[in-house]
């Protein structure tokens, strides 16, 4: 970090926030759609890892990273459909099914992904916004991936759509009361099935970002719980897509703390900084939960807030 000295730390955190947050953005936006419909899909960690594997494998075989992203979306939707279909049966617990789908997705991804650990896949493109600066650190920090920009736009679009479109209204009605939805002639199970499928396909895009951009390789340790933390993040963001986007940035920054301190020579106890995003999530959950009332803005039928 020669030239900018200690300023390298906030810069690295800023760059890290943008780089690390993208999977959080996609998973949490997907989960916000699913949770708005009244279901919780805890299996997105498995979907994310399977998406990462699929995207990498397809990118290796076809040479096109975007084809990889599309394939990942398709598999994510399938995982969502399985979750949504199983959960429509009575006495089936959506949280438990999520845990099971997570193990299933991880196992299947490791199984099918074995041959793709060695080959190198083409990366997703990024846009260099740092051309005005001479400092290589700033240039690399402002090298922003296309998926991050898509994620930001998607957050705004979803925020608008939840409020102003018919689909957004249907989603909210189903999420708040199954009976009210039935009275409107809607089938809550179908709406939730589709919402879980869309949520799954977005989570898989988060996975594709991991394997095709940052860190940009496929291996069995590709995810460090992003799919799970995103579920907590959605609660923190009060099911608001723009809140999800901002929370994801915050988490990304927290995740970049450890490596950033390490890069300026802090070696003591930097393992503790790796826990920063998890501690932050937990603190936020504790601060925003209450034993007596359900959370503000929570969909009425969501089992996690009961």
């Amino acid at each position, binding site marked *: 970090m020669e030239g900018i000295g200690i300023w390298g730390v906030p810069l690295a955190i800023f760059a890290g926030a943008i780089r690390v947050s993208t999977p959080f953005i996609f998973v949490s936006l997907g989960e916000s759609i699913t949770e708005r419909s009244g279901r919780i899909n805890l299996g997105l960690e498995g979907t994310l890892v399977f998406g990462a594997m699929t995207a990498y494998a397809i990118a290796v075989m076809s040479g096109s990273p975007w084809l990889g992203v599309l394939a990942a979306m398709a598999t994510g939707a399938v995982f969502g459909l399985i979750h949504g279909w199983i959960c429509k049966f*009575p*006495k*089936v617990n959506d949280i438990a099914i999520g845990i099971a789908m997570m*193990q299933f997705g991880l196992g299947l991804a*490791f199984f099918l992904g*074995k041959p793709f650990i060695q080959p190198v896949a083409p990366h997703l493109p990024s846009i260099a916004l740092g051309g005005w600066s001479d400092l290589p650190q700033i240039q690399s920090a402002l090298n922003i991936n296309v998926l991050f920009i898509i994620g930001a736009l998607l957050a705004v679009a979803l925020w608008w759509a939840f409020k102003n479109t018919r689909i957004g209204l249907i989603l909210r009605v189903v999420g708040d009361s199954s009976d009210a939805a039935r009275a409107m002639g809607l089938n809550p199970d179908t709406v939730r099935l589709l919402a879980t499928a869309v949520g799954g396909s977005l989570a898989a895009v988060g996975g594709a970002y991991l394997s095709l951009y940052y860190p940009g390789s496929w291996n069995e340790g590709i995810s460090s719980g992003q799919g799970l933390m995103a579920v907590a993040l959605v*609660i923190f963001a009060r099911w608001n897509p723009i809140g999800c986007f901002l929370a994801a940035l915050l988490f990304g920054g927290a995740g970049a703390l450890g490596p950033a301190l390490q890069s300026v020579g802090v070696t003591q106890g930097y393992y503790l900084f790796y826990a920063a995003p998890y501690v932050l999530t937990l603190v936020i*959950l504790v601060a925003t*939960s209450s034993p007596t009332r359900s959370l503000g803005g929570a969909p009425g039928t969501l089992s996690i807030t009961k």
Partner: protein
Amino acid sequence: MTIEMNTPTLSPVSVDARSFSSVLEWLARRAESVAISLGAILAGLALFSIFITVVGKSPIDLFKLMYTGGFGSWFSIQNSLSRAAPLLLTALCVALPARLGLVIIGGEGAVVLGGVAAAAAALPLTGLVSPIIVLPVMAIAGMIMGGLWIGMAGVLRHYRGVNETIASLLMAYIAIALMNHFIEGPLRDPASLNKPSTAPLPADYMLGSIPGMDVNWGLVIGIVACIVSWILIEATSFGFAARIAGGNVRAAQIQGLPVGRLIVGFTALAGSFAGLAGMVEVAAVQGSANASLAAGYGYTGILVAFLARHNPLAIIPVAILLGGIDASGGLIQRRLGLPDATVLVLQGTLFVVILFCETFYGRFKIFNPDLWKRSA
């Protein structure tokens, strides 16, 4: 949130009404969970067979190898039992809170920190006092650490309304970071170069093997823990109160049951079992606390508990079965050329199918005495 526990009768059979028909009803209700669980396992194996056929291998060969690798010889049986030992304890970490309707999935954190605490407790004592004192001290240290860790999830749940599933899982990641901090920093043995570890336990301080078997005492500890837990749930007022609170929190509160103390007590006890698993891993297998503690026992324990439907006695055979499947992984890899994740795919498939089959409870007339009367 609550899990459907499907324990239709809280007290299985009242002694005074042990007539033929009530025994029959009791049998029918027990048979329901056995039949549905077995059916689910068969359906899961069938789905898995299709998958194996699709990837171009013979499922028959695979199941034969699984049997050989898991239970085919005395050597493989001992291997399976060794692998089952930690699963018994980590499954209890899921099953006990489940009785209260809580889904705790962060047992891995208690395993890891329990192991570190046990190793740290042994450090100043080895060489000074005899192993007969050091080993119980290690066990207590591991149990207290694990109990505090998962008990904290219970405290957050009851007093702050924080979802225990997510909290316990986040805490598992924090626990692994703490473990890395301790074994790379304050507790690191300078002699451990490639794999940072705490100072190794001297050989005579290790928890040995059960006489006549190449299986460590962890198996006995795990089985005893399961039996004690079963008695606690089925035969004490504490366990009875927990089952009421798991069924309906409001009703339990109106009855004047101490729901808060039950939640904290059960989560702490659950965590102390997982912490004990970490201690056994240190004292019987690794000889020191190192990154191998995070081997996923906490996560496999979730599957074991759900397969056993949170019944502590059923955990024993299920853990041995999964230990056997795990033990056969190496053989499957060598003989069939399938990746080691094959076992994970099988576990995941079984897990999903088992949970799906929850929906069949109460649907079959033969298992449901209430429906017999209605039609008669």
